[in-house]
């Protein structure tokens, strides 16, 4: 069923994706499709290969076999920075920000301009850059922290900053790895609100354990188990799937 990259409806088409680490197949013959403006949540028990799937899409891990088509481009043949420039943004599980730099500088580095060596040398902090940084900072609740060194932020604020760094890239596909993990209840609420605003006009691929959160945002849920798809569909379908119940509650 290799129609993914010919079908313009699919933003992302993952087909027959397999990766093996020393014989262990962390992801095994996985196929799924993400449409434009779709919010897809990947759930599954620990070790199901969820993070590995994101690693494969963003180029951090090379696939053993299979194809990942994004807007007709084969991501498995591209370098990490080329994948980003094609429009894929990735948030890591633990907040990955630059602690030696200020919040402003963190966001500015992610601004999609001057990405070559000499482009970076010639890069000017223009009014447009400043406006965009401030706009994003406002969205991620850090507007009054712009001049502050990023290492002084709380854990939740660091997560927001990284989400902001992705937002400023304006990716067509946003991949979030457990965006609310380790957050306080009030931070969770704010993050959900934040995610609701930023998922407009783009496709999002989220890994999350928080079922309430998943129910809240997901259009479609993919359940992974041992590197393969166990079930796929709306939250209701998935919740009532006996195979899913078996995996989650059976052991």
């Amino acid at each position: 069923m290799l129609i993914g990259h010919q079908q313009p409806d699919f933003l992302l088409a993952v087909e027959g994706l397999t990766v093996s680490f020393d014989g262990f197949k962390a992801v095994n013959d996985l196929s799924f499709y993400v449409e434009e403006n779709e919010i897809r949540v990947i759930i599954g028990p620990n070790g199901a290969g969820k993070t590995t799937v994101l690693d494969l899409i963003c180029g951090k891990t090379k696939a053993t076999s299979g194809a990942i088509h994004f807007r007709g481009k084969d991501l498995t043949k591209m370098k990490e920075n080329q994948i980003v420039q094609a429009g894929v943004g990735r948030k890591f599980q633990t907040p990955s920000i630059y602690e030696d730099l200020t919040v402003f500088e963190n966001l500015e580095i992610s601004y999609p301009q001057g990405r070559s060596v000499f482009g970076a040398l010639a890069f000017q902090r223009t009014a447009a850059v400043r406006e965009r940084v401030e706009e994003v900072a406002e969205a991620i609740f850090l507007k009054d922290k712009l001049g502050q060194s990023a290492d002084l932020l709380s854990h939740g604020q660091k997560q927001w900053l990284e989400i902001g760094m992705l937002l400023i890239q304006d990716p067509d596909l946003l991949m979030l790895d457990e965006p609310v993990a380790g957050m306080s209840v009030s931070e969770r609420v704010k993050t959900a609100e934040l995610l609701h605003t930023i998922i407009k006009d783009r496709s999002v691929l989220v890994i999350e354990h928080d079922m309430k959160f998943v129910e809240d945002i997901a259009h479609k849920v993919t359940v992974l188990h041992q590197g393969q798809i166990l079930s796929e569909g709306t939250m209701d379908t998935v919740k009532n799937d006996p195979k899913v119940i078996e995996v989650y509650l059976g052991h």
Partner: protein
Amino acid sequence: MESPRFLSRSDVIGLAALALLLVVILPLSLDVFRLNLVAKYLTYAFVALGLVLCWGFGGILSLGQGVFFGLGGYGMAMYLKLEASSVENTKIQSTPGIPDFMDWNQITQLPLFWQPFHSLTLTILAILIIPAFFAYLVGAAMFKRRVGGVYFAIITQAIAAILTILIIGQQGYTGGINGITDLRTLKGWDIRPDHAKVVLYFVEVAFLFGCILLALFVRHSKLGRILVAMREKEDRVRFSGYSVANFKIFAFCLAAMFAAIGGAMFTLNVGFMSPSFVGIVPSIEMVIYTAVGGRLSIFGAIYGTLLVNFAKTSLSESFPQLWLFGLGALFIAVVLIFPNGLAGIWRDHVQPLIDRMINKRKSGSDHHNGKSFGPIADGAPAE
């Protein structure tokens, strides 16, 4: 959010303080012999400056900067040697017109790779381009394969060892262990007398300031911030759409170019070039200068180089056997107690003192804006 200017107030003060020291105080207070020693020390400051960019900011520790220092120095030495080896000067040789050491090694014709060094223009181009190109090759081979950290340091060290062995082994082409000596004139201008040494000192200081300005420009550009970001979270930079390898290659090439300029100035000021400035030991010493000065501070690197070398000269004059232990102890002390070197001490201890004094004087009239300044600490982010 103010946009970072090319020169901040602390940079201007730092430049002025350094200019005062190098252009006014030292030339007025030292005799020509000592001033020439300072000129020699400052040639290493070029290397230290490059190491601040590539190691301090970019996190790429190279233990082989002597390679680039040597390439620059040998380039200049080859030009000067050819000028000193005119047919007239070398008429007692069995083959007049070639450098003396070639004649001693039964070489009867100038090797092809020496030919371009008849021209000063080509020599200057070679000094700037060959080390940078070599750094590009090494950098591309390493960084594209994600070789970094300790492995990169070891490989640069191996390259330094290889180049030294090559130079020593190919005596007929390179002057061997003695290096290239007996250099006399530059375009007919004698570089040996005292007044020439003074002129060369000032030329070197001018070049040093050029390199400092370039380093400050890089530091304050977005590229400078990307280097800092890369040192911390290489993957985040990569997944923000940057080619990390290219940025590392750039920093390494720039550091190589600075080192090569330093090497060329060494040959001019000291009057010879030998493999003892290429190998592992000088390369590591140069890293120590940077560490002592503060690897995150552009100005700190210059003061660190001067200080360690002054100490080296005075200690080795009085206690020749103890010097190496002193250097080792200094490095351990810096790493353990003052990880940000002189610049860190300045920023954490001296600077607040000055700020407080200024504040006291200003108090009542206007408020201190809290912005710090100082000649050594140039606002580099703290570790």
